[in-house]
Structure formats: structure tokens, C-alpha cells
């Protein structure tokens, strides 16, 4: 009984995921806007690296977008 409950609990998000995703996304020929540089998730890697360094050394949080690891004694 318990096992079945767990199975159902696991199945629900998978079903929602697969059916829900069917309406998401685009066909390859609809990527005109998505293929622009400014539409990439890390469009400005240099700015991001410089900002990460500043906020890593001035605040208690780091990472999230990428790795927040060590790297400098600035903290």
C-alpha cells in the first residue's frame, strides 16, 4: 500500500512533466530570437566573472548561477 503510494507520488510529476512539456519549446526554425547572443543565459561572461568576484568578496553568498567555489583570499 505504502509502496504504491510512493509509486503514484513519483509518477505524478513525471506525467505532469512529460505532458506539460509537450506544449513548451520551439521547432528548430523558430530559433531566430533564441539564437541571438543576448538571449543566451550567460550573455556577458566577462561582466559576470567580474561581478562574481566583487560580490564574493563583499557578501556572504556566492555561486548559484555557476560554481561559487574558492578562488581568492579576498573574502
Amino acid at each position, binding site marked *: 500500500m505504502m509502496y504504491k503510494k510512493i509509486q503514484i507520488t513519483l509518477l505524478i510529476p513525471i506525467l505532469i512533466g512529460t505532458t506539460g*512539456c509537450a506544449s513548451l519549446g520551439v521547432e*528548430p526554425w523558430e530559433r531566430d530570437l533564441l*539564437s*541571438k*547572443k543576448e538571449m543566451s543565459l550567460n550573455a556577458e561572461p566577462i561582466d559576470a566573472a567580474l561581478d562574481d568576484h*566583487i560580490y564574493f568578496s563583499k*557578501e556572504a*553568498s556566492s555561486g548559484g548561477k555557476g560554481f*561559487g567555489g574558492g*578562488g581568492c583570499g579576498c573574502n
Partner: protein
Amino acid sequence: MKNKIDKTNIKAALTIATTALLGTNNLAQAESTSTSAEENTWEFDSAFLFYSEVDRVSAGEAIFNAKKTFDNEEVLNLKLTIDALTGASANGAVAQPTVQTFTRPSGNGQYEIAPGDTPLDDTFHDTRVQLNGQWTQPLAPDYTASGGVHISKEYDYLSLGVNGNIAIDFDRKNSTFSAGFSYFQDTFTPEGGIPKPFASMLIGDSNDPSWDDDFAKTRIGSEDDKSTADILLGFTQVINRRMLMQFNYSYSMVEGYLTDPFKILSVVDNDGAAQDYIYESRPDSRTKQSIYAQSLYHFDTTVLDVSYRYMWDDWEITSHTIDSRLRIPLGDSFGTESYLQPHLRVYQQSAADFYRPFLLESDPLPAFASADYRIGEMTAFTVGIKYGMLVNNGHELSFRLEYYRQTPTDAGFNEPGILKDVELYPTVDAIIAQVTYSF
């Protein structure tokens, strides 16, 4: 003439079609003005950043990045970072209505702080060189792997790191799952050595014959190290033609020397007067976790990039970060293709459970304590603007100017006597200026 135009259009259409079929939305080839394939060529980014706090630290940082994309979508990225830092940093002690004297971290000499001023140690200066190498390549259709190395060297600090990542595309490359791992090993050799936790700062005549021996008694060694292991899981989903989303979960484990050897705490009496200054002490491990969500939306011409991060750790610090940029193309109204990009970032964090702005002489010593405002309660915001323009041959030149303000806040500590009349949580204001040239 007509023939030539047709030819260009076909070439441009083919470039767009190729990148569309490859689903390489992270690559820059699809610039509508570009008609040549950029494979097998180097792309360079160079940037200089100037960071300056009012009355405190100033830093200059230069980055040179070289990226080569090979025929079969293999990408090599090499990055050199050099920075130099100088200026004053809060030493952790509280302001007093009287002159205060502190010993420099090296033990050589002392400095005085005027009544009412936040104690700043003005001997900070450091130069850092960092090298990063990253190799990315497709393993099989829809599978991309990446691996990298990191080395960073300062006068008193060495950091070595490796990372690996795998990304799997599915549903016509509309969804991407990625899993990454990174490991850093850092060694800290601070000037003056590693202070003994909670030892009293030695203050007196540094020319006295017994000074060196007495100073050495406040030290437990010359170096210490820490390791950082990170796991990063990500999911990226194309929502529609205009919208893209990313969700990350990260788990980070830091172990080793996490104390700041330059930071002290004031031990005050019931009237708030400093009786002693002791070196801080932090736990030797920290486990951080965060969730991160980012969304990009392409309006008719502008692009909005918004992200949110929630971080929590076993030091009881939690934080919220909202970061947003709006890229507004200006067309070629200034004779060249250009854009403006306003930036707004808002940050809020709660204090670590061992954060204390000062210690009371009458209380027993806690297991750990730090008065470093960077692990105290704080809000911060950044506002900025970036102006970028395409110059000859598709090279890009951009300028960024930002204002950053940190506002530390009182997490509910009672301020005895004279501490009510001094500034315990001073704000920090900084200017960030950057020039970037990509070619």
C-alpha cells in the same frame, strides 16, 4: 549587383538555419550582420574594471579571454585575470568616543583610529594573477562535456581548482539537463601568520625587545588551508520563441580555515567601552545550498534578463538576490549599431549565528564569534548602466558604470552605554567602472 545581394542573403539564411538546427543558442554565430562562419577562429575579450569604495578599498582588475571554436564544435577557453587591491578595510572593532590603537596584522607597527570613526586597517594591498582553462566538446549527439582548471596566486594566497560538467539535451534541444562538480584547494599564508582564535591583540611598543616573542604567542602557525567541493544541477527549458528559463540547485561544502586572520572583535564593558580586542574565530566547515532561477524574455526589440537566488547555509545565513538587466537596442541612431543596458541588483542577507558586532566582557566567550559585517545582517543594491556599440568588423566596445551600496543593519543586539552614540553599522558605497572590448 542584384546577384551579390541575393548571394549574401542566402549565406545569411544558411548561417541562421545551421545554428538553428544545431540549437547552439549559447554561441554567438547568429549575429544577423555576420555572414561568415566563425568556426576555427579565435575570439577575444578584454576588459578593465575599476572598483572604488568611499574611504576604503580600491581595486583594478583586468581580464583577457581567448576562445577558439574548432570544426567539430569543440571549444577551448583561456582566461587571464590580474587584479590589484589597495586601501582600508574594517578590522571588526567598534567605534569609540576615544582614540583607539591597533596592531597591524604583520605585528610590525600600529595604527590609530580617531574618536567616532569605524576602525579601518589601511594596510591592505594585494596583487593577484589567475589563470583559467576550459575545454568543452560534444560527446555524442545531445551530450556535451566540459572540464576546466583554475589557478590563482596572491602574495599570501594560493588557490587551485578543477571542474567538470555534462549537459544532456532533449526534446529538440528545448530542454537541457546539466550536472557539474568543482573542487578547490586553497592555501592561506597571511602576513604575520595565523592568529590564535580569541587571543588578545598585542598592543604596545613594537620596538620593545620582548615584542616579537610576545607577538608570536598570539600565533598558531604560518599557514592554513581550506577545500571547497561544489555540486551544481541545472535544468534549462525553452518556453517559446521569445522565452528561456533556467533552474539550478547547488550544494557547496567548505572545510578548513574559514576564519579571517585580519579580523578582530571589541570586548566591551557594561558601558560599551572597549577593554580588549580579540581575534575572531569561525567554525571549520560550512555547507551552503542555493536555488537559482533565471529567465530571458525577448520583447519586440528589447531583451529582459531576470534572475533570483535563494541561498541558505548551516551558519544560519540566508540570502535573497534579484538581478535584472534590460537590453535596449538603439539601432544605428548614433551612426553605429549600439545598445543601452540598465542594471538593477538587490541583495539581502541575514546574520550568521555566531556574528557579534562586539562581545560583552561580562558574558562567557561563545564557541565562535566574528564581527565581520559581511556575515552580519545586510541589504545591498546596485544600479548601473552599460552602453555598448558595434565598431568595425563586428568588434564590440562597451562601457559600464555602476553604483553599489551596502547597508549593514542591526540584527537585534543591545548596545550598551557609549555604543549607542557611535555608528556600529556604517554603510559602504562603491563605484564600479568597466571598459570591455571584444574582437
